[in-house]
């Protein structure tokens, strides 16, 4: 029997991951005013990298069946490295799909197509290397083996991994917000987001800020993929795409370009989904997009998106 507390925690945990994805979109949207459609593919990549770093083996349909790392890394290190890996590929996506268009002063909308293309290539590469099958993470992966399978919290049994997932995404979101708010490079990023021309005239290298946004955004997606892989499983190379779409919905729900909006939007979405009884779980996505629809009718700029739209 699932208690309300369990439900809420599950909702918050998946909401946290949605917020990670949406924040990834937000960073790039604020500095370039475009959506990076490769975000879902980077999410998949993070999941697969985490799987491999934890010591998982490539399945029979992959390019190198049975291949895997000789040792599994502790989960926190695997997540960190997988996030960095996705961040690095995010930078590559920027080089290939965004930078050439920007250099030619092309219409920003065109990068929707190029980034979608980059995402499709990435997912297909994953499929080539890892096969189309789903993967369950290695049982008792290093570092997790010491932890109990579930915790007793306020009379409810809660999977340890859910708590961990919530804690890690909360930590990532909090440090990102703190960084944007307090650090100089974070302030530089907000300056570029507000007015790129003026920012460069003050000596801020806006290209470096853009690269940083892609690195961080890729890392957020990769971390999300790793966390979902650990808590659920990898349902094939395309599994990140649906999270990418959900993140996009959260982005619009919270308000384009708003950091608090992405966080609140993620939590609203996650909690709403969790409150759907399991018998009706087929309606989850329908509910998510119904909420989005309702919010957009009532508040066209999203939950917390007011200021951004006024600016434009």
């Amino acid at each position: 029997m699932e208690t309300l507390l369990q439900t809420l925690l599950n909702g918050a945990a998946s909401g946290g991951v949605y917020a990670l994805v949406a924040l990834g979109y937000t960073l790039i949207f604020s500095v370039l005013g475009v959506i990076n459609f490769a975000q879902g593919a980077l999410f998949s990549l993070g999941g697969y990298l985490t799987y491999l770093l934890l010591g998982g083996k490539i399945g029979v349909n992959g390019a190198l069946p049975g291949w895997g790392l000789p040792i599994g890394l502790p989960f926190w290190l695997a997540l960190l490295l997988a996030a960095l890996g996705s961040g690095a590929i995010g930078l590559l996506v920027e080089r290939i799909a965004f930078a050439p268009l920007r250099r030619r002063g092309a219409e920003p909308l065109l990068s929707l197509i190029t980034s979608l293309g980059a995402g499709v290539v990435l997912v297909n590469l994953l499929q080539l290397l890892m096969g189309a099958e789903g993967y369950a993470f290695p049982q008792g992966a290093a570092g997790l083996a010491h932890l109990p399978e579930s915790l007793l919290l306020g009379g409810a049994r809660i999977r340890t991994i859910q708590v961990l997932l919530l804690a890690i995404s909360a930590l990532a979101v909090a440090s990102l917000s703190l960084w944007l708010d307090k650090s100089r490079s974070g302030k530089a990023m907000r300056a570029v987001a507000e007015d790129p021309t003026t920012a460069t005239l003050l000596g801020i290298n806006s290209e470096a800020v853009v690269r940083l946004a892609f690195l961080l955004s890729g890392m957020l997606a990769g971390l999300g993929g790793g966390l979902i892989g650990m808590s659920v499983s990898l349902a094939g190379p395309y599994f990140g795409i649906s999270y990418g779409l959900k993140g996009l919905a959260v982005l619009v729900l919270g308000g384009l370009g708003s950091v608090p909006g992405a966080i609140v939007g993620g939590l609203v979405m996650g909690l709403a989904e969790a409150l759907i009884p399991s018998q009706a779980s087929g309606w989850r996505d329908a509910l998510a997009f119904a909420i989005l629809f309702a919010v957009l009718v009532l508040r066209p700029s999203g939950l917390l998106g007011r200021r951004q739209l006024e600016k434009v």
Partner: protein
Amino acid sequence: MSSSTKTEAGPWLELRQISRQFGGLQALSEVSFQVEEGEIFGLIGPNGAGKTTLFNLLSGVTPASSGTIHWRGQAMQGLSPDRHNRLGIARTFQNLRLFTGLSVLDNVLVALHRQPQGSGLDALLNSSRFQRRQSELRQRAMQLLEELGLADQAHRQASGLAYGDRRRLEIARALATAPALLLLDEPAAGMNPREKEQLCELLAVLRQRHQLTLVVIEHHVPLLIQLCQRLAVLDFGRLIALGTPEQIQRDPRVIEAYLGGSR
């Protein structure tokens, strides 16, 4: 800091045969002049004369269609705006471009990139060295705000400032990049006569204290005559006069351009 490296021969800032077209519009044609180190140089001309275009060229926002700009012995063509700024050229804007989402203090802090930053690792570990650097940067920013009379508003949102204060914040922010050449685009626009008077005094003080060379665009000619050693007059993208304020005031071409003879 690069202030020790200005031993090059030749003029300090030199524009040679600068032209700029926008489609069929000739915004600037074959403009040449020099600015000496330490002077206050005024740019006047009717609306559409090409003054702001000239600032855009000098700050690297738009490239010249032809001609060259040399700054302390270096050719500036093809350098990005942030390179221009790092080489010591800063500017303000006619239509204010503050970061309205940031606080007054943060507007200045963002521009303090000439100061050493400390590594990202220091920041991550929040080491004592990093904290010391942070407080030094804040002090430096507060000092600039103080000079511009904005210290008591440091923690307000920039969007909440009064008009004249916003103009002064733009100057503080430009000064934070430690420029040698400061381009001021209508710094007195929208100010009342008293504020204009104060601005004049302030600019003279700032030039001394920060060893600045100033190039000032201003519609309010009496202010420029009081402030500048030399003036250049643009009309329809051409340089029609160049000289001391006295010479300019007597120049028949200037009088014609301003009083609109036979156009």
